[in-house]
């Protein structure tokens, strides 16, 4: 079932993507075709099948809770032009 243009707009908003009308229309067709293809998975009865949580079993131990060195703040700020007082500067979040 093809996505509606409103659904595509909603997904774009959730994904924080500003898209033109032409892009929305193109993605509507392409995403609908891909969703048609992946609908094939519904053929399978998976009621008794556990989802894959990790491909390598038994291999997610927690590390010791100790403080280790990490990158200094200054280095992490180097890739933004909008910084001050050891922080990133952003436009207002609230109106």
């Amino acid at each position, binding site marked *: 079932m093809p996505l509606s243009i409103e659904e595509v707009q909603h*997904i774009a908003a959730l994904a*924080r993507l500003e898209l033109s009308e032409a*892009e929305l229309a193109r*993605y509507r067709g392409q995403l609908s*075709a891909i969703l048609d293809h992946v609908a094939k998975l519904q053929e399978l009865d998976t009621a008794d*099948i556990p989802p894959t949580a990790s491909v390598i079993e038994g291999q997610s131990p927690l590390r010791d809770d100790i403080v280790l060195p990490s990158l200094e703040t200054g280095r992490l700020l180097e890739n933004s*032009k909008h910084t001050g007082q050891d922080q990133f500067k952003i436009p207002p979040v609230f109106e």
Partner: protein
Amino acid sequence: MTELTELTITQALAALQAGDVTSRELTRAYLDRIEKLDARLHAFLHVDPGRALAQADEADRKRSAGDPAPLLGMPLAVKDVLTVEGMPCTCGSKILEGYVPPFTATAVRRLLEAGVVVLGKTNTDEFAMGSSTENSAYGVTHNPWDAARVPGGSSGGSAAAVAAELAPGALGTDTGGSIRQPSSFCGVTGLKPTYGRVSRYGLVAYGSSLDCPGPLAHNAEDAALLFSSMAGKDPLDATSVDVPAPEIRLSNGNLKGMTVGAPKEYFIKGIQAEVEAKVRAAIDQLADLGAEIVEISLPHTEYALPVYYLIAPAEASSNLARYDGIRYGPREAAESMWDVFYKTRGQRFGPEVERRIMLGTYALSAGYYDAYYGQAQKVRTLIKRDFEQAFEHVDVIACPVAPTTAFKIGAHGDDPLAMYLEDIFSLPANLAGIPGLSFPVGFDAQGLPVGMQLMGRHFHEAGLLQTAHIYQQATDWHLHRPALAD
């Protein structure tokens, strides 16, 4: 006289060890060849001759002081989704234009500790999403065997660099085939290790449960050398596995006692006839070398593509949420914070990345999660079980890497699904977390390389490399090089 750039890593290391050549001479030779040929091929996004030569000089000093580092002075290219401190990292995206990472990926750091010299960063589909490098925001890489064709992707720059002898080896990453498929298209040997065997720290995340760094080289012996130096547990990647880094000693000989499975679902209608013929001939050769060949079935193979194109985009939509124009990359001007997000992301991500982010966002959104993402993770279990059952009977699985040889630039136009079908034989290994190796087994009528894939159990990289090595001792497909007129 043999040009320095024709040497394999193994041969060049022997020459360095014997004092026949210095790392500076070797590095200079690759930099000169890049200078001469890369304007046409566009395998590299960034080359740093000064830094490379300084590293080479350092390696030469260390060697004369008796440093035993295994790859001391060996030039290497690095895919531009792996960070190297102080070297630009764009991931083929405009959203990371100008980003200079303050840290080095563990896989790269380990290779630097083993002595490599980083020549530069290679082209990739944007955030490794693609099968042709056509999705790079910085232009396509051309296949060294035919400049009108793609090198495959997403590690197309790395594969083209090795094939064209712009580097003796390269790092790539593989989320759904992105090392193996370009290796097949460019006639080189590429290894996707077991998930977790090589740290993902500093590999810019695409699909975190699938991503794997790995080596591309001229042959299995060289790939084994690079892989041994990259692998191992890393405290900076919680999913890295605590299995010791393998020391792989390849031996010559035969394949007696080995059972090779040929999965019938990988020899299907629609596959290019010459690809099937060359892969079947290579399997016959494995039999001539002593292996027992059995037909096997991996019954859920046809579901791998839909599973992958839900799980990978879902993970991508989450991972790529970090590109907000705040901390790195350019920021589009806007009055409000939200508009910074919308504009920066909308203007700077390319179409394939936007498609996958949207697909993943949809698959994870309220009301659709169980039907799409949840169902995909369950079917992933079935695909994983197919392999577990197969490996009760066979040591390795042999099959095509991709259904075709390198296609023409632009051939898939604006049809994402057609492009996704390029990955049908490579995705299953990522979904199951098992290792896969691609290596050349012949050429089609156009003179384009055909690759064969070997897959093995978790942590069985050595077995794959050993099998390919014995094949390469008996054949010369891996010795062919593209004719690149000066």
